């Protein structure tokens, strides 16, 4: 095994909710994720997976501890700086396919790139078509997002997460609402982009097969990490 660079570093992250009573959701969570790694996060419902993911995505800033992405310390940055980093370095896929319903699939995919402004709108459109093609959705590109099936919408959301070629892609139960066929498609895409493009994927899942086939699995319980990788990595056995 050769050493790969660290894309995400989580140092002792703790988080409390105060409503309705004060309780600790995350308890000194620490781990690292490496370049090109396909990481899954499992654990019982309520164990804090989504909460952790929101902290990692820089959308939630009310936590203790430190968070580094690609060597940059995110903890303590201003919201506009975080938005910029999120735009460039992080792709996020939500549990429920959150798309802008009136916009076409193509426009939905283009949005983060239009904000980044690294390419001209013409190039962005081309790139968006490429991403949709990877997800086998090219023929749906011009339909409004609300006219697609659940599985298709989920894949559009993945295409959107990929558009800026982020170093990190985070997913909260990306296959939670999908049938086994679509789950397989999503899994293959994640496998492919982590191996071919060296992008890092962190996916929360309930699907044991999905987790077992990923590179590494972190298991959470009551806000702490109870197992990290090795024991779970059946593929290397």
């Amino acid at each position, binding site marked *: 095994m050769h050493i790969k660079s660290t894309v995400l570093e989580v140092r002792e992250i703790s988080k409390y909710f105060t409503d309705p009573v004060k309780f600790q959701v995350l308890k000194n969570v620490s781990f690292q994720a490496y370049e090109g790694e396909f990481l899954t996060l499992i654990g019982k419902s309520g164990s804090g997976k989504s909460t952790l993911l929101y902290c990692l995505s820089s959308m*939630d800033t009310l936590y203790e501890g430190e968070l580094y992405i690609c060597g940059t310390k995110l903890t303590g940055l201003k919201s*506009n700086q975080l*938005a*910029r980093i999120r*735009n460039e370095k992080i792709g996020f896929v939500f549990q429920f396919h959150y798309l802008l319903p009136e916009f076409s699939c193509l426009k939905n995919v283009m949005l983060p790139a239009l904000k*980044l402004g690294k390419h001209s709108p013409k190039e962005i459109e081309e790139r968006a078509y490429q991403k949709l093609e990877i997800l086998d959705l090219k023929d749906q590109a011009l339909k409004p997002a609300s006219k697609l099936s659940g599985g298709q919408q989920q894949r559009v959301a993945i295409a959107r997460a990929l558009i800026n070629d982020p170093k990190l892609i985070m997913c909260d139960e990306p296959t939670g609402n999908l049938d086994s066929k679509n789950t397989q498609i999503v899994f293959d895409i994640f496998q492919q982009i982590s191996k071919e493009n060296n992008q890092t994927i962190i996916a929360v899942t309930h699907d044991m097969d999905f987790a077992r086939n990923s590179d590494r699995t972190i298991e959470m319980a009551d806000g702490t990490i109870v197992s990290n990788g090795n024991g779970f990595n059946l593929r290397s056995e």
Partner: protein
Amino acid sequence: MNIVGILETGSSMIDNGKSFVNISTAQQLLKKGTSYVSTIYANTKDVENASLFSQRLQQLTKYKVEDWTVTNADLLAGDKTRSAMMSAISLSILLVASFGIYNILSATIAQKINDIAILKATGYTGTDVIFIFCNRGTNHGTDRYNNWLAFWSWINRNHAKKFTWVALSGIFPFISKVEYFLQVFFWAFFITLCAGFFPARKAANVDPVSIFRK
């Protein structure tokens, strides 16, 4: 003496109390010589220049020179009050209209809160959100301005030359000064910018996580 014609101004106080004769008849009636003149009225090309001219004329003569703004000071004061009232009415209409747009945008934002959260999650900043909604607001403003302009052109083309009893000129007093159009555009733009800005500022502070948690 013969009546040779009747002049009606529309004001009965003038029509019933005044008649016109030529100047030599008037001098004879008053038993004065041909050099007797009590008042000379003079028109200036530009009415706004009258007081300037009166000052200059005053330097040339020992007689009293008075321009129309002094003669009609009470009328002008009434005019000032009237235009102040017009401004107040216009301003209230403007305010009501802008509250309408404010409400439309507040409702849109409440409805689109999901979309705003998604935009923020994918890297759009609060400033971007404010920009988007101010832009929507001023679109309303320029739309309204264009409607007004269309109405104005229509009424100007079809009705401006029609005879009415408005003022002595007999036709609607239409004034097409560029600054009036700019003023209307400025207010339409500015007030809708405000109507967009305040709800947008609320939207800009939305915490996407709290939306996704629902």
